[in-house]
C-alpha cells in the first residue's frame, strides 16, 4: 500500500496536496482497496462551497456507498470530469489520475489538523 510523502491525510481516508492556496483532494490507496471495484462517483460542481468535514461527494463500489468529506473548507475550483465516466480510475490511480476535486483554501490553518504520511500509515495499520 502506498502513502506518498508529499500528501496530507484525514482519518476519513482522504488525501490533500496543497499548491499555493489550492488543495487537490482524493481518496487514499487504503480507501480504494477497502471499497473494492468503484462503479460510481458523484462530484460537486465548480463554485460549490464546503465547510471542513462536510460531504462533498460520493464513491460507490459494487457493495458499498461512501461519502467523501472535505478535509479543508473552501470553494471548488475544478473537478475531475473523467471520474464519473471512468470510476475505475479511482482504483487504478488513487493519488494521480484519480484526484477528485480542487478546493481554494478558505483557512490554511486547517491544514495543521491533517496527518502526514507517517502518521496516516500508523493510523491505518492500527485500524
Amino acid at each position, binding site marked *: 500500500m502506498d502513502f506518498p510523502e508529499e500528501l496530507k491525510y484525514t482519518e476519513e481516508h482522504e488525501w490533500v496536496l496543497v499548491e499555493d492556496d489550492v488543495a487537490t483532494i482524493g481518496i487514499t490507496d487504503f480507501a480504494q482497496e477497502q471499497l*473494492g*471495484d468503484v*462503479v*460510481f462517483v458523484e462530484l460537486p460542481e465548480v463554485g460549490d462551497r464546503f465547510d471542513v468535514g462536510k460531504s462533498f461527494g460520493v464513491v*460507490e463500489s*459494487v*457493495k458499498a*456507498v461512501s461519502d467523501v468529506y472535505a478535509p479543508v473548507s473552501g470553494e471548488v475550483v475544478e473537478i475531475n470530469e473523467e471520474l*464519473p465516466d471512468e470510476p475505475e480510475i479511482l482504483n487504478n490511480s488513487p493519488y494521480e489520475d484519480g484526484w477528485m476535486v480542487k478546493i481554494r483554501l478558505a483557512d490554511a490553518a486547517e491544514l495543521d489538523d491533517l496527518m502526514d504520511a507517517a502518521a496516516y500509515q500508523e493510523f491505518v495499520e492500527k485500524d
Partner: protein
Amino acid sequence: MRKTPLNQLHRDLGARMVEFGGWDMPVQYSGVINEHLAVRNAAGLFDVSHMGEIEVSGPQAFEFLQYATTNDVSKLIDGQVQYTALCYESGGVVDDLTLYRFSADRYLLCVNAANTDKDFAWLQGLHRDSSFADLTLVNRSDDYAQLALQGPQAAAILNKLTDVDLSALKYYHFAIGPVAGIEMIISRTGYTGEDGFELYCSAADGPALWQQLLAAGAPLGLIPIGLGARDTLRLEKGYALYGHEITADIMPLEARLAWITKLNKGPFVGREAMLNAKQAGLPRQLVAVKLAAAGVPREGYPVFCDGKEVGYVASGTMSPSLKQGIALALIDSAVAASDAQLEIAIRQRHVPADRAALPFV
C-alpha cells in the same frame, strides 16, 4: 461465527472475509467485477458449504413434501432437482430451496444457510402436526461440503476429473459418482445463469475437492468467486434471494414465482392464503428495471411514479456485464401492470428507471 471446511483455504488465497448469515465467508478474492466476468466468460468456483441440507426419507416422504412445499413434487423423477419453496399458512415464504429426489421415499432439501435451523424446526413442526407420520427428517448440513463450479467452461473442467458422463446430465438433474476420486452428488444446477454444477461431498473431502478443481480449471480460466459476485451474477439473471425478493411477508406470487407455486396440485401449506390473495388481487408485484442514468440502485431505496412513492428496491446493483444500474423492485401492482415511468430515489435525486425484461443479461 461458523466456518466452512474451506475457511483456511480462503484465507490462504487472500480472500476478504465477511459475516454472512452467521458464517465467516469470502466476499471477494481478486475483485467482484473480475470474478463476475470470469464466471460469465470462463468459469468460477464457489464455496457454498454454508448452505443447509435436510434429508427427508420414509414411506410418506413424498406426501409430506407435497404438503410442505409449493411446487409439484409429483413431477420429479429419480435424479431430478426442483426449485421450490416452503411457505407459512399466511402465504409468506419460510425459505426457497432446491429439492433432490433420490428415490420415491428419499429426498434432500438444499436450503439457505441462514435459514437452515429455522427450516428444520419448521419441517419438524409440520411433521408433528400433520398426519404424515411415517418419515424421518435429518439435518445433514454439517455432513456436507458444497462447491459450485459455474461458467461456460465448467463442464470441460469437471470432465477432466470424472468418468461420469456429463453430456448425459441435463439441467436440473443430478448423478452420484466420483470426482477426483471423491464420491459426491453432481448436480447440474447453479445460481449464476451459466452452465455449471453444484457438488456435494463429505465435509472432510471439501478442501481436497476445492484444490483439485482449481488446479484442473486454472488453464481454462477458473478462479475462486466470493459472495459479492455471487450476488451480482444472480441479480443479472433475476433470481430471487431470500430476505430480499422473498421474505415471511412476501408471497411467491408477488415475487414472480408463480411458476413454482402449483395452486392446483392439491392442499399445501400457504395455499389457502394464496388463493384468497389472488382472488382479492395481489397488492404488489416484483418488477425489473434498469437505471436510465448513472447510479447504483440499492436495497431499500424508494421507488416513485408520478411523484408518489409506489414501492422499494428489493435488490439492486451495478451490473458488471451491462455497466448499468439494475434492480428488482417490489411495487404497487397497478403501477407494475402499467407502463408508467418509474423513478428510484438515490439520495436527493430521482433517477429514471426503465422497465426491463428478465434476465437482464
